[in-house]
């Protein structure tokens, strides 16, 4: 392989097996050797833990108990669990609200920044950096920050501001109805930066002449958005949706720090529930089964969204 690799490309006719190339050259013309390193890495660090989790899901393993027996209890206990129903409903509303919110807000800010740049306004770089700063903060710190902001104690920033404005304070975290909203706000605040950067990059690739042509065709703002911006952003929006969906489904540190899943189970989502099952109740088998459920949900939704991506013609 080395001797074909060092030969200048122009000299190397494609797919020939010269006397010097031999087996190496024939192998190199197939996909296998190129895929092998990636397959090995993924297999070792991703696939093996997944297989291990599947195995654990069918045991009665406990966290500090090394003696395990195969059992269907972990899986079957999920089937009729009313707690799980609540958890799934929480997960659904939390995920949908967060994902839609992050994409919508990220898109809005990206459009604003691009618009400002076209108008040659100052400060767009600062704005982008500030938004991005939220993304750099660890999720657990984000949870703590928002806990301080939402705090119903006298020093709670948001309630203090409301009080100064003459509005009655809101039970942001202690009211079960508001707690989910607060969790969603904290998540959107942090995740928006990611959408913004992704969509900003996509917006920058749109040929400005299209907008000029539209201006000459007397297109209104919504028409420019609908006929030019949105179709162009479609792939980026879908990829963005997939990534954010997975991140949000797996998000638990922000909520852990913000509400700990409470009050009651009001903000407990699947990832947090699985975490609690393993690390607070030590039910490793059941936790593994919950993780499997999370994996299946993630994969299904990802597959559905991937179907919407524009297919390249073969």
């Amino acid at each position, binding site marked *: 392989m080395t001797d074909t690799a060092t030969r200048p490309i122009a000299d190397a006719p494609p797919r020939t097996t010269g006397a010097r190339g031999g087996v190496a050259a024939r192998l190199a013309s197939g996909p296998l050797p190129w895929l092998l390193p990636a397959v090995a890495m993924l297999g070792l660090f991703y696939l093996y833990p997944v297989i291990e989790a599947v195995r654990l899901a069918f045991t009665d393993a406990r966290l500090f108990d090394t003696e395990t027996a195969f059992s269907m209890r972990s899986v079957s206990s999920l089937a009729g669990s009313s707690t799980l129903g609540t958890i799934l409903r929480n997960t659904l509303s939390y995920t949908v609200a967060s994902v839609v919110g992050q994409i919508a807000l990220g898109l809005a800010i990206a459009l604003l920044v691009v618009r400002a740049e076209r108008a040659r306004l100052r400060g767009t770089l600062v704005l982008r950096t500030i938004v991005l700063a939220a993304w750099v903060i660890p999720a657990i710190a984000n949870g703590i920050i928002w806990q301080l902001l939402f705090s119903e104690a006298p020093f709670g920033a948001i309630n203090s501001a409301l009080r100064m404005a003459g509005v009655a304070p809101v039970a942001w975290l202690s009211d079960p109805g508001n707690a989910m909203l607060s969790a969603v706000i904290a998540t959107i605040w942090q995740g928006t930066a990611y959408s913004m950067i992704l969509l900003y990059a996509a917006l920058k690739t749109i*040929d400005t*002449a*299209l907008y*000029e*042509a*539209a*201006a*000459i*065709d*007397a*297109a209104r703002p919504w*028409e420019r958005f609908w*006929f*030019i911006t949105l*179709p*162009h952003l479609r792939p980026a929006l879908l990829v963005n949706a997939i990534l954010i969906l997975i991140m949000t489904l797996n998000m638990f540190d922000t909520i852990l720090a913000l509400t700990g899943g409470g009050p009651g189970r009001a903000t407990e989502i699947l990832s947090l529930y699985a975490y609690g099952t393993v690390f607070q109740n030590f039910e490793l088998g059941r936790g593994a089964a919950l993780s499997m459920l999370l994996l299946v949900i993630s994969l299904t939704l990802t597959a559905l969204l991937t179907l919407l991506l524009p297919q390249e013609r073969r």
Partner: protein
Amino acid sequence: MAKLDLSAITKSFGATRVLDQVSLSVPDREFVVVVGPSGCGKSTLLRIVAGLEAASAGEVLLDDRPVSQLSPGQRNVAMVFQNYALYPHLTVAANIGFGLRRARMRRAEKREAVARVARLLEIEPLLNRRPGALSGGQRQRVAMGRAIIRNPAVFLFDEPLSNLDARLRMQMRSEIRALHRAVPTTTLYVTHDQIEAMTMADRVVVMNGGRIEQIGTPTEVYSAPRTTFVAGFIGMPSINMIPARYRGDALELPSTTLPVPAAVKPRLAGHAGRDLLVGLRPEHLDIRPGGDGLVAEVDQIEPTGSETLVYLDHPAMRLSARTAPDTALSPGMQVGLRLLLERASFFDAETGLNLVPPPSNLTGELTA
């Protein structure tokens, strides 16, 4: 249908002045080609007319009505962009019909209008395709279709052919002209290609460095260039510029002195003793093997089939001449040149201005 007037348009980007007092008057239905080297401000001028850019000073008038306060969509102009700017996610039919979105027409009428334009441009089979699946020439036609369907007051073209290969460019040149005959619309057409300017224009506007150098018919700018810039920019191969001095009925040229024909004398009257430039087109240099008058050495011979171009070296300059294809010249030969001074343009070497102002009027009024 409209008359387009530009009055003293000036445009600066920061400290750089890109357009300087550009005035131009285009009568209804005229096809005007703006030509000039890269960066001379042609696109900027077009964009100001379209309303995509605001002039720093001056006014654009459509049918004597100032339009500076109007948005591009309100001006009723149509523009064909250099890269076509077709909406990539709409079909060809939707692209062409885009301008009819709000027209008070029934759906069937709109479809009929699109079909009519497609027929005119011979792109009917492509109506259901996306722009991505079209060739450059086809995109070009769709872009024109999108422009003409709106029946605009003014057509604006910004180097629409520069992305096409030579053969297609030639074909599209005559198609655009044919289209203009079929749908006579006031047109401002920008290009840096002087052949496009010469072949397509009713009138040519030659620009340089943000200023208009000359406005005239193709023949006028070719045979009576107002400045040395116009003389050098129009015509391929470039005009020969021979430094000279007019002295007592004779022209002193490098290494020779020529008597001035009686017909030329009035044009040189009053310029005795001045440094001049004699502009002679390659077809106005006669090669005489053996040689008399100006003597130069043949450097390079370029047969084009219908004629042969001869490039010559003279100690003071480089010259080119157009000859019949059956020339017996070969590189290295010493030849004499006869200059057809009756056909020459004479420029003041200092100002670069033609001594005899050409018949066309720089301010752009048509000379009746």
